[in-house]
């Protein structure tokens, strides 16, 4: 017989304190009570004055004894008194099954996962039937697969359904979780069992933190004969935007040097191959360059394949080089030609005014001093439109006016500077409050940008016919307008292949944090944190994640498995192998339900026998006044 919740000393201390308090309260309740009354005449004139000749210390000892016994029973119930031996109590075990990416490595004819499942099943079958086991799947995340379960078939089913993940093992987190669950569980803590090869990441702090004393390790033997891709980075060359710079990182996990071949294929066609040697336990970076304007799939294959083939192959989706179709409707194409053709990735087409068709234009349209029969259906730049044709109302027509200033607080005006600029003839527009007044004379705006479904910029004069054609501000202004109308044209793209898990990237110094978005393939947002210029997000499953930060877009193809960095050296004192439990749990039995019931019954009896009568006397009786409260005179 033993207590599950309290030690004997704690129990005795508690019961002693409660008993003493109770007796004191009892004596206090039975002590002489001072009471002010309206008169003493009826206390003394009764036929048999109830004056006590002998005052007893304890008036109702049975009541006190009954209360003490009842409280003792309730306290025993709270302490969870059990029949049997303490060791016979069912225990709560936590079985940590390694489901890291490395578990899909081959080991003979089977995988490491098969071997780990087998050992986990063997452990579950060894545990006494009354013990509870919680199955926890551990990779970078710790996921409980079952609660503390005594149903062995459920546990075996959960073990059989466990599969390797895409991330490396975070054993610290798994052990902390197991300890916490055992502390919160209602049963006696049993063992924490780790099943796996013990391959951990470099960030693991297993050596620093004390290991649980009840830890048991069921090791699975593995071979480190593996070479694999760690990451692949692809970005457009700074010198030539049509060239992709490709960087691949290959690691040799084995203990012997390896000679490998990395072959690239783009769109199914060979794109390059490189043969190189990698020293044991180290990484090697390989660089490629590939020229293409088109988008497509870039495949990387590491040859020869080994026991762990998941990291021998990677696929990246390269985006096409962005471009913009610009159609200029003008009878004098030479005026705008030098400006619009100087912008890279812009394909300018010049057409005569008579050839204008509102629905034919695909991309941006420039309308040079003519009234189109129908307004364009996309973004458009209107230059010196005829009166009545302007999309923005004209306020006045001015001759020989000095140009006043450019707007100061908008990206459309970034870098624009002019001095002593005079406009021979210009329209002044009646702008709306949301319009951007790019350039102004004293009487009002002469270049206005309007956002909306279709973006529109209207010039009140022709830049090629005014003094502005000699200014550096002219190409800069058109560049700003194109950046505003087609921002994707200027976006820098990068593609990286890596492993699922935590991803860290450095943001550009001029990136505003409110402009940063991290999106999954389906467009759903991914939570992220930033510290300084470092952005971190976590992806537990393989997939593609896009990071948009102002004019920079980085696509992460998280398809490579995250692998280990080192092997965990299990401390010498740690228990290993399958245990030999004794089946003694059946001898232990809970008594608290019976004790609680008896305690409650005792208190009820005490109240029925003693408390109710006293309570009735203390309360003002409601029935008496109805019977005798009113006396009639006649």
């Amino acid at each position, binding site marked *: 017989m033993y207590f599950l919740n309290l030690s004997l000393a704690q129990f005795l201390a508690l019961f002693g304190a409660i008993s003493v308090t109770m007796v004191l309260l009892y004596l206090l*309740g*039975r*002590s*002489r*009570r*001072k*009471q*002010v*009354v*309206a*008169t*003493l*005449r*009826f*206390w*003394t*004139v*009764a*036929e*048999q*004055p*109830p*004056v*006590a000749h002998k*005052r007893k210390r304890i*008036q109702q000892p049975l009541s006190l004894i009954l209360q003490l016994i009842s409280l003792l029973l309730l306290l025993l119930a709270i302490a969870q008194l059990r029949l049997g031996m303490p060791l016979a109590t069912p225990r709560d075990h936590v079985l940590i099954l390694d489901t890291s990416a490395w578990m899909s490595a081959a080991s003979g004819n089977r995988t490491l996962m098969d071997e780990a499942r087998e050992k986990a099943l063997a452990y579950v079958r060894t545990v006494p039937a009354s013990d509870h086991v919680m199955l926890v799947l551990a990779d970078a995340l710790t996921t409980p697969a079952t609660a503390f379960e005594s149903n062995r078939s459920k546990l075996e089913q959960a073990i059989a359904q466990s599969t390797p993940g895409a991330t490396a093992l975070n054993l610290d987190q798994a052990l902390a979780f197991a300890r916490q669950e055992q502390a919160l569980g209602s049963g006696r803590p049993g063992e924490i069992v780790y099943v796996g090869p013990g391959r951990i990441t470099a960030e693991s702090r297993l050596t620093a933190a004390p290991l649980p004393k009840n830890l048991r390790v069921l090791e699975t033997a593995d071979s480190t004969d593996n070479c694999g891709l760690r990451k692949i980075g692809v970005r457009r060359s700074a010198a030539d935007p049509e060239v992709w710079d490709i960087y691949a990182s290959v690691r040799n996990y084995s203990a012997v040097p390896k000679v490998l071949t990395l072959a690239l294929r783009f769109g199914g066609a060979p794109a390059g191959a490189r043969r190189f040697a990698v020293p044991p336990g180290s990484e090697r970076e390989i660089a490629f360059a590939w020229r293409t304007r088109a988008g497509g799939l870039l495949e990387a294959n590491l040859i020869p394949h080994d026991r762990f083939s998941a990291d021998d192959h990677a696929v990246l989706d390269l985006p096409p080089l962005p471009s913009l179709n610009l159609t200029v409707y003008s009878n004098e194409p030479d005026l705008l030609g030098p400006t619009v053709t100087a912008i890279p990735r812009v394909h300018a087409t010049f057409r005569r005014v008579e050839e204008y068709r509102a629905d034919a234009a695909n991309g941006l349209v420039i309308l040079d001093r003519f009234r189109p029969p129908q307004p364009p259906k996309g973004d458009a730049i209107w230059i010196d439109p005829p009166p009545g044709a302007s999309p923005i109302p004209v306020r006045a027509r001015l001759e020989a006016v000095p140009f006043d200033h450019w707007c100061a607080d908008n990206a459309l005006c970034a870098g624009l500077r002019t001095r002593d600029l005079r406009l021979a003839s210009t329209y002044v527009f009646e702008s709306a409050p949301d319009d951007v007044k790019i350039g102004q004379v004293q009487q009002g705006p002469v270049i206005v940008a309007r956002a909306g479904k279709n973006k529109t910029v209207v010039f009140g004069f022709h830049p090629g016919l005014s003094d502005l054609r000699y200014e550096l501000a002219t190409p800069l202004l058109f560049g700003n307008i194109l950046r505003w109308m087609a921002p994707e044209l200027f976006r820098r793209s990068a593609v990286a292949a890596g492993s699922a898990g935590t991803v860290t990237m450095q943001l550009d110094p001029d990136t505003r944090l409110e402009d940063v978005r991290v999106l999954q393939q389906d467009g759903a947002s991914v939570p992220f944190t930033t510290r300084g210029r470092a952005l971190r997000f976590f992806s537990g499953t393989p997939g593609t994640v896009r990071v948009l930060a102002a004019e920079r877009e980085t696509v992460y193809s998280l398809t490579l498995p995250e692998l280990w960095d080192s092997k965990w050296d299990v401390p010498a004192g740690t228990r290993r192998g399958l245990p030999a439990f004794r089946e003694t749990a059946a001898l232990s039995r809970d008594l608290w339900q019976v004790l609680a019931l008896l305690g409650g019954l005792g208190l009820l009896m005490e109240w029925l026998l003693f408390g109710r*009568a*006293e309570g009735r*006397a*203390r*309360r*003002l*009786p*409601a029935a*008496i*006044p109805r019977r*005798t*409260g*009113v*006396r*009639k*005179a*006649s």
Partner: protein
Amino acid sequence: MPSGPLLERQFLEKLERLTIHWQKSFNGLVGGHNTSRFAGGGQEFLDHRHFHHGDDLRAVNWRAYLRLEKLFLKMFQVEPRVPVRMLFDTSESMNSEGGFKFHYARKLAAALCYVGLVRLDTIKLQPFSSRLGEGIQCGGGRHRFSPVTEYLNELQAKGRTDFHEVVRQFISTHPQRGLLIIVSDFLDDSDCERPLQYLADFGHELLLAQVWSEEDRTPPWTGDLDLVDAETETRLRLQFDESARGQYTRAFDAYAGGLQQIAVRNGGRYVGISTAMPIEDVIFGALVRSRVIA
């Protein structure tokens, strides 16, 4: 004690259909709603008497003179305006139940005053403990009720009860007989039956309203008690149990019975009122049944 008005408006509206009644006839001025057998300048014919020199010729029965050739004078019933007097106990013993008994008695007195005011009776309310206190006289309708409630609210329960002294003062200052309502717990250590008898013998019609709290009649305590008299601060130590409680209650009931006997024997009325009963039930139940008000 609860804040707010002493009596609720709805309750006052119910009281307006009631009237204070008394059984005896008193010599007094015209007024009120109680008939009198004393002759005077009323409107209801009462009797004839021989004409005496100096009598009002308007009251001569000329028809009788024509027939009998004797002068007879018509006499009419007097409608008395004898004030209803109310003695209100403000001794320390009224502070039972944390002052609830006193508050309850205040409400009872206020209700009786309102009934009288509505019927144009004159009410004289006088507090007492060991001596008769300065009272308040009111009359002239319901709009004079507010000074009464203010007066009652300002009263405090303190001092000893001395019925002998109070009755002596009352008889010496109020020679005119009339209806006398005494609202008290009648818990005087000295005998209060004899002073009440004096009042009855003097000609007053007594209406004894004995107010008690439940702890006055059935003390809820048990065990060893150290009792202190609220008025005299006399101490008494005793052990109290269920049987003693029964004896106590019987003694209390016997005392209340004695008070009832005095009232009934002298043509008065007695109403015993427990504070456990709602005041509305007392007014429309016990007081109406005992024909104090109707």
